[in-house]
């Protein structure tokens, strides 16, 4: 997960195509195939549908961050991306070692679809900005 976050960061900072290509090369050379294929899928715009309802995500984050729902919407309007907005609003808490991307997707994110509301809420809205996947993961656009 950390390698993917780093790649995402590098792609964003790059001002030239050659820098982006170099970032991709470094990433794909260094991670296991399963992580690489998830990364590819996400960066090509892949979205997991109907995992957790965005309306609930908004509500849980508002409650965790102790903000009224309308203020979360104000933030969303400025930031533009719902997943990013919610990740920024959660109180930060460092997680020593986030799992690899494929492990995260297969063992934590995908099972959310069939999980109880309590489990979903605990995973999505517990404090921990630094370990939160970026908005691409939630697919909230």
């Amino acid at each position, binding site marked *: 997960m950390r390698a993917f976050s780093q790649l995402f960061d590098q792609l964003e*900072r790059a*001002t030239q195509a050659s820098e982006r290509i170099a970032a991709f090369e470094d990433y794909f050379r260094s991670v296991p195939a399963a992580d690489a294929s998830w990364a590819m899928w996400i960066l090509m715009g892949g979205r997991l549908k109907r995992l957790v309802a965005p309306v609930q995500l908004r509500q849980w984050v508002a409650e965790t961050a102790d903000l*009224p729902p*309308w203020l979360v919407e104000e933030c969303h309007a400025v*930031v533009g991306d719902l997943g990013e907005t919610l990740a920024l609003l959660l109180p930060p808490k460092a997680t020593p070692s986030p799992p690899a991307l494929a492990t995260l997707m297969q063992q934590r994110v995908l099972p959310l679809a069939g999980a109880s509301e309590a489990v979903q809420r605990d995973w999505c809205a517990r404090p921990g900005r630094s370990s939160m996947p970026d908005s691409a993961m939630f697919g909230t656009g």
Partner: protein
Amino acid sequence: MGGVSTAFASGWMLFRAARRQRGGGRGFVLSDHVDWPGLIATIRETGASRVLVTHGVAGPLVRWLNENGWQAEALSAHPVIAAQTAVDAG
């Protein structure tokens, strides 16, 4: 000029859309403006019951204060304040 890259420092660099607007390059989150929790904490510490908001995007703060026991309004419509705000924001 080889070996040169640009960066931008602002509180706005906290989110991606603002960084993208800068057209690439690194964004540093650095601001001389207070963040939301700090702003609220400072207002609490003043003990003020009436708060006049003069700077930046006043609407959400005014609304939040009014919903949480303060008497608040925006002063941005005042011509002197508006002129000062325009200078500060420049």
